[in-house]
């Protein structure tokens, strides 16, 4: 039986994920004075970013709805499964 395809990215609880550009990447790392290693991590095969076709080493920007701040931005480094 074929399981019906469910697009997790459309789900209300899945925040918006995007891979950021080289320029933005530099800005983020510089702003927090960190290297890629110190970023929070996300697996390449994570369902929420699978459709973006991420590569290991990319940085994913996550825009979340926040109870306290309305909207908040989070970054994650893509790592190998």
């Amino acid at each position: 039986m074929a399981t019906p395809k469910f697009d997790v990215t459309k789900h209300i609880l899945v925040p918006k994920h995007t891979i950021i550009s080289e320029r933005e990447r530099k800005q983020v790392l510089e702003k927090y004075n960190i290297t890629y290693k110190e970023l929070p991590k996300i697996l390449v095969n994570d369902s929420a970013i699978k459709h973006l076709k991420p590569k290991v080493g990319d940085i994913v920007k996550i825009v979340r709805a926040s109870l306290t701040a309305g909207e908040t931005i989070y970054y994650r480094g893509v790592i190998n499964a």
Partner: protein
Amino acid sequence: MMGPSIHKKVDSIVFGVFSPKIIKKMSSAKVVTPELYDKEGYPVDGGLMDIRLGVIDPGLRCKTCGQKLKECTGHFGYIELARPVIHYNFVSTVLTLLRSTCRECGRVLIPKNKIDSYAKVLDQAEQEGGISARRSKIKEIITTLRTTNKCPWCKSRQQKVVIEKPTSFYENEKRITPIEARARLEKVPDEDCMLFGINAKAFRPEWSVLTVLPIPPVTMRPSITLESGERSEDDLTHKLGDIVRINQRLFENINAGAPEIIIEDLWDLLQYHITTFFDNAVAQLPPARHRSGQPLKTISARIKSKEGRIRHNLAGKRTNFSARTVISPDPMIDLDEVGIPIIVAMKLSVPEKVTEWNAEYLKKFIDRGPKKYPGANYVVRPDGKKKKITDETKEQVIEELQPGYSVERHLMDGDIAIFNRQPSLHRMSMMCHRIRVLPNKTFRLNPAVCAPYNADFDGDEMNLHVPQTEEARIEAEILMQVKTQLISPRYGLSIIGCIQDAITGNYLLTKALNFSREEAVELLLAARENDLSSLSNKQKFSGKEIFSVLLPTDFNFEGKSKGFTGDEKVDMKNDTVVVIKKGQLESGIMDKANLGEGSGLMLRNLVKQYGEQKAIEILGKIFRLGIEVLLKLGFSCCLHDTDMPKEAREEIENTLSKAYEDVDEMIAQFNEGKLEAFPGRSVEETLELKILERLNGARNKTGGIVGDFAQKDSSTIIMANSGARGNPLNLAQMAGCVGQQALRGKRIDLGYSGRTLSAFKKGDLSPDSRGFIRNSFKKGLAPHEFFFGAMTGRDSLMDTALRTPKSGYLYRRLANAMQDVKIEYDESVRDATGNVIQFNYGEDNLDVSKTEGGKLNVQRIIKSVLKA
């Protein structure tokens, strides 16, 4: 003046394993005999208590270093083992090496051209995921090597090595003796060891098979002399005695050319003794025991677990200058005071440095001595020598006293102490109080600070610590004073507020009371308000006016009382809109919503506008004012608070009867099969739900009736309305109907088969048989009702008893996992290694303790900015 100059600096530390050579080199004696003492009771040379290994008897001198008891830290010895023995702690190392190196040539079972790439993979893993990633990678490689059956270096066939726990290895059903194992490990070249994460310079693999055994110094296994003059040896000495004895026998048997079986048996025995010497809790071995049957405490038992050296002695801290006793309330001491018994005050002390200005003052303390309060217990000389003050030494000490000395005087009013109640779950569990020396034997604290400590007075005990240096005292005062902890960092509101009587009192005062001028002044003075300038010249005062005297004259505030509905007319009638203008309480009742802990913004605003010192003073006065009001009025609740008029009782009876009828009808419907099921539910479930709903509705209705008919001026109602204690439900249970008893969200349905009690018919679904308590507490419960009540009571008791340790452990794990997390200057949250956890603290960068209930009042900020 200065610390000792540094002449050697630690550059790096290498961890490794002692080689046989080093063991011999660091030893000062070779142990050859299991005997301990000769006939005169003098330690035997070459025995386990050899005086070259250190001294434990007073008067003797160490033969190695010449020092006396307590000066000599002891010296290691060694024994030469007749046959090598596997070191238990390295069994796994030996096994992996035997499995993944060649049995002939000793090289790793990796082809020459691939070694470099393996090393690279490991290095990369370490770079990406740290040392733990490298280790797991090594493990992976080892498992792949196990199946190799031909050495890529010398082409010899490999055998499968199996371990027979704990310490024997077999290959093809044939035992690999420790001699053989050692020979194989010797062949493994240094560079191959690196692949396994072994630094061969500090740890040659063959060293994990012992050929000599170091004997720990006698100072770490001292014998004790019993009253009878008999000597009792330490567990380690016993174990070492066994080892030496078996070792000697093994030597003799080998030299005598005994049969191989006997030698092997002895060898195994030696292995057992050496293994249990290191660890007496090896799963497969019976623990070595005393003659009395209790297991020996050997090396790993000394280090491991809660009672071990690490958690007990190193991580566990004990402290002097502390006290612990039962706590009791005293609403008349200040919020930031703690009452301590005079006996405690005379035992604990504060060192006070003697200067030329206070010498005379301190001499009086010494003169009173340790037995008369306030006296002094010790005098400390500038060289650090402590001298006890007694009646005999008193005069001499006073004579001797000069600037530079310190006097350890008794605690006095106003000294600083840190007060603590376990479990110390948040920072408010340890606060700094001012000492107040009081009679009797309990610690006294203001009931308003019960909330941060989570204390009550049903037998709780608390701890008190007295800081001993000027720095510690200042630090405690700046960081830990009660007033600095007023606002909780958890929700940004005051966690210290009025409780119980203080709430009731202020509620009554601000609701409807009127006092004459004399009474008003009396009340305010009793509450320790000395500034009565804001009291007008009137002869009669309303409670609100009296309350307003405590407020700053420029304080403006708007808020809500407990019964606030939002309906303007109702709120006007009930006086639930709090308006304070220029320090005058114009409308509104002061109840729990305004004065209580963790509720309302009035206290929060007081702190914000007037600072914590002022706020805590005001809070103290409000608290005492409430109590004084009750003292003046007299206040107690009684049984007839729950009396209901006849019509109320009838109405309650009717409501319940109606509900019973309805339920009976539902059951009848169900039995006839006419009941329609809810979507997704069975008919039975539907019936249960319907019954439950109907009965709860009935109970709530009786609650409403009780609320309507209850005397509004009865003490019980006043307490419930003010929020001091109790709620409408408690009242309804007392006067109306106790209601349904539920186990796991269902009506009670266990007990006998098909019924809850033998008094009911099988399959009886009526309210009575399923735990509905129709009576009120005042009326008294029927026997079956009482039993159902006991069931739920026991269930909830069990629940709390089981939940407390569970949640405690959960909290401990959380706290340990997050203890190094902090907010950096760029407002990001990081752990100790600099990994980002949040990019903005709490997503909004707000310090909760600087907010009002987690929010910022932007409107007021704008107003205040525009004003300035």
